[in-house]
C-alpha cells in the first residue's frame, strides 16, 4: 500500500521506463475523448463565457458590453419564469423517475428467465427519437381522446387538460418523461444484481422481513448507483428541451404552454436563434451552469451521509 502511494506521487522524471510507457499508452487511449472534449465542450464553453460579455447576433462581430447581459438576467421576467418551470419539473421528475425505475428494476430482478425480454421492452422507449416522443405524447395526453384520460375515465375520473390547462402542462410533461425511464432501470438492475445474496440470507436468518432487507441491505448497497442517477437526472431535467419544444414551441404557437411550458433551455434557444441574442443566451447558459454546479456540489457534499461505498 505504501509502495503504491509512492509510485503515484513520484515525479514524472523519476518514473521507470515501463511506467512512462504505460502512462503514454493511457494518454493515447484517452486522447480521442480528451481532444473531443477540448474541441467540442471546453472550447465552446470558454467561447460562450467570452460571448456572455458581448452583444452578438451571430452574423456580425461581437461588441463588448461588459456586464449588461448579466444585468438583464436580473430584470428579465421570462428568465425567472423559465427557471422556475425547469426547477418545478426537476423537483417532480427526478424523484418520480428514480422511484418508478427502482420499482421496475426490483420487479425485473425477480423475473428470472424472462428478464432479458422485459429489460429490452423497458429499454426500447429510451432509444425513441425525442421528437417522435414529443409528437406521440401530444396524442397520449390529449384531454378528450388521449390514452391517459380514457384510462382515467374507466375508473370514473375526469382527466385534466394535460395539454390545454396551464396548471397541468408540467405534470403532463413529467408523465411523458417516464417514457424514457428504461435507462435508469437498467442501471438499477445492474446494481441490484451486484448485491451479494449472502447478505439477504444472513438477514433472513436474523429474522429481517422484506422491507427491512430492502431498507438496510438493498438501499445501502445500491446507493452509489442511486446517487449517480440522482446527479445525472437532475442535470438532464434542468436541461430538458427537445420533447417540449416539439410539443409546444415548434411553430411558435405554444397555446396553453406559452408560460407553463417555457423551460429554461427553450427560452435560451429562442434568445439565441430566434431573437439573435447570442450574447444574452451565453449569459443564460452560464447561469444554468452555475446553478447545476451548485446543486451538484450540494449533492456531493450530502452524499457521504447516505451513499455507501464498499471498501471505503
Amino acid at each position, binding site marked *: 500500500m505504501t509502495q503504491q502511494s509512492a509510485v503515484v506521487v513520484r515525479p514524472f522524471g523519476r518514473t521507470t521506463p515501463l511506467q512512462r510507457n504505460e502512462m503514454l499508452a493511457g494518454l493515447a487511449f484517452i486522447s480521442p475523448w480528451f481532444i473531443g472534449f477540448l474541441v467540442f465542450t471546453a472550447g465552446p464553453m470558454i467561447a460562450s463565457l467570452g460571448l456572455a460579455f458581448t452583444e452578438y*447576433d*451571430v*452574423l*456580425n462581430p461581437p461588441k463588448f458590453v461588459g456586464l449588461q447581459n448579466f444585468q438583464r438576467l436580473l430584470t428579465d421576467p421570462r428568465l425567472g419564469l423559465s427557471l422556475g418551470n425547469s426547477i418545478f419539473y426537476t423537483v417532480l421528475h427526478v424523484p418520480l423517475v428514480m422511484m418508478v425505475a427502482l420499482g421496475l428494476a426490483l420487479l425485473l430482478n425477480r423475473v428470472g428467465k424472462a428478464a432479458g425480454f422485459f429489460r429490452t421492452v423497458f429499454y426500447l422507449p429510451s432509444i425513441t427519437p425525442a421528437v417522435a416522443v414529443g409528437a406521440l405524447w*401530444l396524442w397520449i395526453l*390529449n*384531454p*378528450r*381522446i388521449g390514452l391517459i384520460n380514457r384510462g382515467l375515465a374507466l375508473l370514473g375520473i375526469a382527466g385534466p*387538460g394535460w*395539454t*390545454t*390547462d*396551464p396548471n397541468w402542462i408540467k405534470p403532463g410533461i413529467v408523465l411523458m418523461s417516464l417514457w424514457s425511464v428504461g435507462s435508469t432501470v437498467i442501471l438499477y438492475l445492474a446494481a441490484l444484481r451486484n448485491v451479494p445474496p449472502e447478505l439477504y440470507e444472513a438477514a433472513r436468518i436474523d429474522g429481517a422481513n422484506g422491507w427491512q432487507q430492502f431498507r438496510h441491505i438493498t438501499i445501502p448497497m445500491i446507493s452509489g448507483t442511486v446517487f449517480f442517477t440522482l446527479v445525472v437526472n437532475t442535470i438532464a431535467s434542468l436541461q430538458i428541451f427537445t420533447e417540449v419544444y416539439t410539443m409546444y414551441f415548434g411553430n*411558435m*404557437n*405554444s*397555446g*396553453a404552454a*406559452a*408560460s*407553463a411550458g417555457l423551460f429554461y433551455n427553450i427560452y435560451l434557444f*429562442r434568445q439565441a*436563434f*430566434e*431573437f*439573435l441574442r447570442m450574447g444574452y443566451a451565453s449569459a443564460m447558459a452560464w447561469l444554468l451552469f452555475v446553478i447545476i454546479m451548485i446543486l451538484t456540489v450540494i449533492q456531493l457534499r450530502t452524499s457521504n451521509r447516505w451513499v455507501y461505498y464498499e471498501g471505503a
Partner: protein
Amino acid sequence: MFGSKSRTVLAVLAIILVAVAFPIQRTSQAQGEVTGTLNVMGFSLPDEIATVRVDQFKAAYPDVTVNITEGALDEQQFLTAIASGNAPDVVYMGRDVLSSYAVRGAIVPLTECIDSMGIDMSQYREAAVAQVTVNGEVYGIPEFFNSIMLFINNKALADAGLTLDDVDVSDWDKVAEINQALTRIEDGTLTRIGFDPKLPEFLPLWAKANGVSLLSEDGRTAQLNDPRVLEALQFTVGLHEPAGGRQAFMAFRDTWDFFGAQNQMVSDQLGVFPMEQWYMNVLANVSPDADITFKAFTDREGNPLTYVTGNTWAIPRGSANPEAACAWMKTMTSVDTWVAAATTRAQMRAEAGTINTGVYTANRAADEVIFSEIVLPALTNETFKTGVEVILSVQDSAYAIPANPAAAEFKQAWQDAVNRVLNGEQTAEEALAQAQEEAQAALDEAWSQQ
C-alpha cells in the same frame, strides 16, 4: 446583282436580323454566364409545383448544378452556415422574418440582381413586395401569397336555422350570435364549435378589421395597446365562451382530423372559421363533396380584407454564386414557370379526376394566366369555384404586418399576450400592456443597431 430597291430591302432585313439576334445573343450570354453549383436552403420538393419549377430552371440553365437541402428553414443551421462562411447560395424563408435578417446583413439587397436580370418587380403583389422591402431596398423575391377567407359549414347553418347572410363578420354582434347558435353541446360535451376566430395567429386580421394594424407602417412603433386591438382581442377571446372556454375549445379542436376525410367540416364539428386558402386545396382533395361555402372575410365596414403570409427567396451574405441565385429567384417566380407548374398540376388533377383549385402566387401576372386560362375554365365544382373566386376577389385587399427588424420578438410578444388571456393568466388590458412594452423594447433595440 441586286438593284437599289433590293439592296434597301436586304439592308432592312439585315438590320432586323441583327436587332432580333442581339437580344437573343444577350440572353444567351446572360444565361451562359450562369454556371457552377447552386446550393439551396429551406426549400422542399413535395409536389409538382416545386419540381416543375426546378426542372424549368435546370432546363434554362443546364450549366448550373442544383443542390437542394430539403426541409423548412432551420434558423440555427442558416445562422451558423453564414457565420462559418459556408452560406447557401440562395435561401427560402418566411416573408415575416426576412427583415430581421436583412437589417443584420444576413441577406443582401437585390438591387443589382433585379437590374442585371431585368426582374420586373411590378408583376409581384404590392403587399408581398412591401414585406420584403427594408429601408427602401428589396431583399427578397416573393413566392406564394396565402390569403384568408371564411369556411362555412352549411349543415351547421341549416341546423341552427341560419342562412349565409347571417354569416357577416362586419357585424361583430351578429358573429357572437351565430357563434352561440352554431355551438353544440350534447350531454355536457362539446360536439361543435360555432365560430373559431383562430387565435392567437389571426389577431392581426381581427385588429385590422377593427381599423388598426399591430405595428405602424414604418415598422417602428408597436400599437398593441391601441383600444381597437384591445376590443378585437376581447371580442375574439369571448367567442370561446359558448364552447365552455378555451380549454374545452382546444381539447376538442385538437381531436379533429384536420387533414383527413373526416375533417371538422365533414364531421360537423365546426360552424365557421377564417382560414388560409391552402386549406381549400386540402378539402378539395380529401372531401370534394363537403357541404361548405366560402365567403370573403370583411372589416367592420364590410370591405373585403385578408391577412397575407408567404415565403420569399433571398440571397445570403457570402453566397458563392449570386448570379445563379439571382437567375434561380427570377425563374422560380416568373410567369412562364408558374404557368408551367400550374398546367402540370391541372393535368395531374384531371387525370386523377380530382378538383384543381389552383396555385396562388405573389406574381399577379402569373395568377391572371393561371386562373383565367387554366383553373377556372376547367373547374366545374361550384363550391370550390366560388372559393377560388372569393380568394381572387380579396387578394387586392391584403394586409401584412409591416417589415421590422424584430419580427420574431414582435410576434412572440403579441402571441404570448393572446395566450395569457386565453389561459386566464391576465386580463386583455394587462396582457396587451405587457406585450406593448416588450414589443416596443425589442423594436427600439433592433432599430438602434441600424
